[in-house]
C-alpha cells in the first residue's frame, strides 16, 4: 500500500489518497481510480503498477503534459518514500515506509483543514480586535467622545500596537540565537495576550467600586475573578513558551504558585492600603441600589469614628513611649561621655 499526497498550487489543502489495489490509474476521466480534474492532466494520464520485486512504478500513458521527476520528463518512474513526482501541474508526494504508514494511518483529516500557523494568525487577529475594543471602551467610559478623544484613542491603539509588535519582535530576535528558530508569531501571541489581560484588569480594577458597594463581597468577587483570569492566563503562557516540553504537573504547580503570589500581593496592596490612604475609588453614582436611612445612619459613622479615636489614642501612647525611649537613650549616652 502507498499513500499519495496530491497538491496543486491553487488548492487550499492537499488531497490524500490511500492506494491499496494495483494497477491504479490516474487521469481526468471518471473511469480512473484517482480522478484529478485539472486542465494539465490528460483523460488517461498515468498508471501505478506493483512490480514483482515489491517496488511501485509510475508509467506515463502517452499524456500531453507527461510525468516529471526532479524537473525531467520520464516515461516511467520508480516511486520512492517521500519522493516527489509531478503530473502536469500537480505535485504528488508518495509515502512508502511502514512506520510512516502506521502514523499516517491515524490521521483523519477534517473537511476544512487548517495548519497551526493559520490557527495562530486567526487568534492573533481576534485578540488584536479585542484589544482595540478594550482601548476604546476604557476611553469611552472616561470622557465623551469628540475629535480630540478619537485622536487619543487612535494614538493609544497605535502605541499599544507598536509596543506589542516591538516586544514580540525583540523577543523573537533574542531567542533566535538559542532556539535557532524565528518564532515571531508565538511571541506576538504571548504579548498580545498580556496586553489584553492588562486592559481587562485596568477596566475591572478601576470600576469595581461603581457597581459593588459591599467591601467583603467586593473582595471575594475580585479575588475569584483575578484567580480565574490569572489561572487561565498563566496556563496559556506556559503552553506558549513550553510548547513541546509542556509537562503538565510541574507547570500546573508553577502556575498555581504564580497565581497565588499575584493574588496575595494584590489583596494586600488593595485592602490594607485602604486604611492608611485617603484615596478611595468612586462614588457609586450609577449604582442601582438605594441606601435606606435606617441602615446607613450616623450610628455607623459614629462607631467607625470611635474605633478611629481608640486607634489614635493607641498611636499616641506609642509615640510617647518612643519619645521616652529616645530620651532615655540620650541620657545614657550623655552619662557615658567622660567629662
Amino acid at each position: 500500500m502507498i499513500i499519495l499526497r496530491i497538491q496543486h498550487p491553487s488548492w487550499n489543502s492537499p488531497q490524500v489518497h490511500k492506494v491499496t489495489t494495483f494497477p491504479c490509474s490516474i487521469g481526468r476521466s471518471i473511469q480512473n481510480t484517482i480522478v484529478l480534474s485539472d486542465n494539465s492532466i490528460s483523460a488517461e494520464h498515468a498508471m501505478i503498477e506493483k512490480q514483482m520485486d515489491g517496488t511501485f512504478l509510475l508509467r506515463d500513458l502517452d499524456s500531453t503534459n507527461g510525468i516529471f521527476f526532479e524537473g525531467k520528463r520520464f516515461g516511467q518512474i520508480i516511486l520512492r518514500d517521500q519522493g516527489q513526482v509531478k503530473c502536469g501541474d500537480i505535485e504528488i508526494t508518495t509515502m512508502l515506509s511502514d512506520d510512516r504508514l502506521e502514523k499516517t494511518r491515524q490521521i483523519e483529516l477534517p473537511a476544512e483543514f487548517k495548519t497551526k500557523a493559520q490557527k495562530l494568525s486567526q487568534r492573533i487577529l481576534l485578540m488584536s480586535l479585542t484589544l482595540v475594543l478594550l482601548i476604546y471602551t476604557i476611553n469611552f467610559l472616561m470622557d465623551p467622545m469628540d475629535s480630540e478623544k478619537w485622536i487619543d484613542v487612535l494614538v493609544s491603539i497605535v502605541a499599544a500596537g507598536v509596543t506589542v509588535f516591538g516586544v514580540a519582535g525583540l523577543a523573537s530576535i533574542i531567542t533566535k540565537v538559542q532556539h535557532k528558530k524565528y518564532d515571531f508569531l508565538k511571541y506576538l501571541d504571548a504579548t498580545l495576550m498580556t496586553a489584553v489581560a492588562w486592559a481587562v484588569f485596568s477596566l475591572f480594577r478601576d470600576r469595581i467600586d461603581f457597581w459593588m458597594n459591599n467591601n467583603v463581597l467586593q473582595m471575594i468577587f475580585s479575588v475569584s475573578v483575578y484567580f480565574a483570569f490569572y489561572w487561565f492566563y498563566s496556563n496559556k503562557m506556559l503552553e506558549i513558551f513550553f510548547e513541546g516540553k509542556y509537562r503538565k504537573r510541574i507547570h500546573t504547580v508553577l502556575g498555581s504558585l504564580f497565581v497565588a503570589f499575584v493574588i496575595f500581593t494584590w489583596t494586600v496592596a488593595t485592602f490594607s492600603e485602604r486604611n492608611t490612604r485617603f484615596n478611595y475609588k468612586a462614588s457609586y453614582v450609577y449604582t442601582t441600589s438605594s441606601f435606606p436611612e435606617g441602615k446607613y445612619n450616623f450610628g455607623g459613622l459614629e462607631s467607625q469614628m470611635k474605633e478611629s479615636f481608640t486607634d489614635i489614642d493607641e498611636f499616641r501612647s506609642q509615640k510617647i513611649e518612643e519619645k521616652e525611649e529616645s530620651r532615655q537613650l540620650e541620657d545614657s549616652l550623655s552619662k557615658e561621655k567622660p567629662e
Partner: protein
Amino acid sequence: MKLICVLLSFFVFSVMAQEEAKIEEVKDNDILYKKVKPFVYQVKTSQSAESSKASYGTGFVVDGEEGLMLTNYHVVSTYIQDEDDRYKIFVTDKDEVYEAKVLDFSVIFDLALIQIEKKFKGELRIRDKAPGRGETIYSMGLPKDLNISLVEGNYNGVIKSGIYERILMSTPVNSGMSGGPTVDKWGRVIGANVSILLNSQNISFSVPIDKGKDLIESYRKRKAPLPRKEYVNHIKQQLKQIEKELFTSIDENPGKSNSIGAWQFSAPDKTGKCWSKNDYSEKRTFKYSRQNCFLQGAAYIDSSIYSGSYEVMYLSLESLTRNRFQFADMVDSFFNGKDYLKNIYTRFSESNELTKFSCNEGIITNKNKLSFRYAYCLNGYVKYDGHYRMYFKAATLGDKRNALIVKLKVDGFSKEGMMTFLKKHLDGIQKKEAM
C-alpha cells in the same frame, strides 16, 4: 512777568509749607520714638544668655514696678513647648540681658505675659477706648533683628472670626516685630503686633490690648506664675474654650441657607469667609460651582500645629453632555481631587507632634434621605490628648446628572465636637425642590 513772579512765589511758598509740615511730622515721630523706645526690648529664646537664639521677637513693658512685659505667645513658644528645659527666655537691650519667666499665656490671642527682674521708671500706658477707623497708628519692634524701628500705618477696625479677634492695620510689619507694641499718636498701647497676611501689601494684624489686660488680671488674681507642669493643661483648656466658643458662634450667627447647583445646604458661621466660583468645564461637558468657607484665624501652638479652626468646601457638579458612566468617572476624580490631595498629603507627613492617621470609609444617609459615600482620616495631637484633627469628604449618590461633594477640615476639636460638626453639616444638605 508779574504773572510769573506770582506763580514763582506761590511755588516757593508751597515748597516751604511742605517742608515745614514734614519737619513737624518727623519731630513728632521722633518724640514718639523717644517716648516708647525705653519700654521696648528684644525677647529671645536660647540655651544661655550668650548663645545664639532659637527664636526671637519683641516685648514691651506694661508694669514698670513689677517688670511685667507682654509679648506674643509664638515668640516664646519654643520655651513653652520644650519639655527638656533646654531653652530659656531672655530680654535683651544692647548691653543688658535679663532672664525672664513666663507668668501666663494665651494661645487663642497669641499673647504671653513675662516678668524680668528689673524696675522701670514708668511703663507704656494702655488706651482704654478703641481708636477711630483711619486713625494713624504706629508699630514698634526689631524687624529681622536689625534695630528697634517705628513704622506707621492706619487703624482699620477689629476683625472678628469665631473666637478670634485681630486689629486690622496697614502697617508694614516684618518678622521680628512680633510682640512689639502697636501705639497711637500719643504713645498709648492699643495692641500687640502679631501677624501679616501673606501675599499681600501691608496687611497686618495685632491683638487688641484688652486681651492683654485680661491676661494681666488673671495673673493678678492667681498671684503666682503658671507652673511649668500646667502648661499642657493650660493649652488644653484653651483648646476646649475655642471649641465651645466656635460652636456658640456657629449657633448664634447661622449663615443663610446657601445653594449651589441643584443643592441646598446650611452655610457655616457668618463670621467665616467664603469664596465661590462657577464655571463650565473646558469642553463644556459639565458645569461646576464651588463654595469654600473658612474661619479667619487659628491658634498657633507649635511650628507644626495650628489648631482650633475649620474649613468647609461644597462642590456641585452637573453633567451637560456626559452619560452616567462618564459623569460617575468625573465625580470620582473630583472626589479624589488632585489639588485637594496635594494639599492634604503635605499634612500627611510624619510629625513628632501628631499621631498617625486612622482612616475609614462608608455610606451614610442623612435626615433628608440623601445618601453619601464618605471617607475620612483622623489623627490627634501627641501632647494634647482629647483633641483631634479630621479630614472628611463625602459625595452624594444615586443621581445620574447631579452630584455634590463636601469636604471638611477640622482642627483641634474633641470627639463629641467632631461628631456634632459633621452631623450639622451633613444634615444641612438637601436637594433643591424642583422649580
